[in-house]
Structure formats: C-alpha cells, structure tokens
C-alpha cells in the first residue's frame, strides 16, 4: 500500500526561521496532502497537490512534489510560535476506492 513517511521525525527551529519537512512514498499517487495537528486532536488540512503539479503555495506554505523521486516537501517560511504542531503527509488514491495512508508525522517546535 502507498504510505507517506515524513522526515525528520522532530524539528526545532527559532521563530522567524524557515522549516522544511519531507515526505516520501512508495507507489503512484493521485495527490498528496499535508495536514497539521495540534495537541493530538483533529487534523487541519493545509494543502493538496495533485500528481501533475510540481509546486503549490498557500500563504507562508510552499509544497513541492517530485513524482520521479516519490517525494514531497513542505516549507513554512518565517515560522511563528503558532506553527508548533505535528505535520503529516497523506498520499491520495489513484483509484476512487483506495484509502489514504498517513505517515507518522514531523513534530515541529518553534522556539521563541
């Protein structure tokens, strides 16, 4: 089954710096999604990037997708304390009935 695996597992950076998280997966995908989770509760959808897209922006977020390397990156620019959270990538189905698989996440900590 397809699976997103994030790295690093944990990341601590100073407020104002940029944070980069990576995701690798194993099989062909229709799309890849990034989610944020605070305090172990509900996930918040950040960005969906489709397999025919290479880069996508949303505010301070930039996501890239390299289907040849089966990898994606999430860049958060000018980090803020409120960005402290866990970030997950989820690989989206090729087929309508295929389920999405989440990785274990990157725990990002923004230091004041």
């Amino acid at each position, binding site marked *: 089954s397809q699976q997103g695996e994030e790295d690093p597992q944990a990341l601590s950076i100073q407020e104002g710096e940029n944070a980069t998280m990576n995701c690798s997966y194993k099989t062909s995908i229709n799309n890849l999604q990034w989610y944020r989770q605070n305090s172990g509760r509900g996930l918040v959808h950040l960005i969906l990037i489709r397999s025919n897209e290479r880069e996508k922006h949303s505010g301070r977020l930039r996501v890239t997708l390299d289907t040849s390397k089966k990898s994606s990156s999430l860049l958060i620019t000018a980090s803020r304390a409120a960005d402290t959270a866990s970030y997950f990538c989820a690989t989206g189905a090729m087929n309508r009935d*295929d389920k999405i698989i989440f990785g274990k*996440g990157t725990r990002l900590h923004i230091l004041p």
Partner: protein
Amino acid sequence: GAGVSQTPSNKVTEKGKYVELRCDPISGHTALYWYRQSLGQGPEFLIYFQGTGAADDSGLPNDRFFAVRPEGSVSTLKIQRTERGDSAVYLCASSLSGPTDTQYFGPGTRLTVL
C-alpha cells in the same frame, strides 16, 4: 453543518464494556472515514464509507469493531468488549466524493479503557 463533529469528545469506559462513537460529517459529503490515532503516531485507517455502504473496511482490527452509516450521513463506530489496547483518539473525516478529495477532520473522540 459547518464542519465534522464527533461525540462524545471524551469517553472513559471499563474493560469489557461496549461503546459507540458518533460522527456527523459535513452536509453533502458522500465519503466518510474513521481513523484511530495512538500517541505519537499518525492516523491509522479503519473504515471508509461511500454513501451508506462500507467501501473499504480493511483497517478494522478485529470483529469487535463495527461501523454503520444507515442513511448515508451520520456514522457510528461501535466497539464491543473493549480492551485497554483500544484506548486512542478516534478521528472521523468526510470528503465530497471519495479519497481523491480533501478530507475534513472532526476533533476526535478520546477513548480511554480502564
């Protein structure tokens, strides 16, 4: 509704008891998903509904777990003879038509089995 809602937000039960967890998806979303998340882990897929039917229940860990969505909207996850290992946050999500769409998550139900 405005978003996915789940009730209860917390459930504490004793080993061996039966529990039901409820999910109210976003109105008009035909796809509904249940996940389980343990501390420090990503969400683990349990079951996916397309309308009233379970399109994929391959993630249900054993026959103590069952889920229904009788009218294609609200879903209930049922766990029989709960075990301590069932303790986790149970997350529900919905999407417009299927897994190729963005999933919107509820706040989760934290289940603790004593």
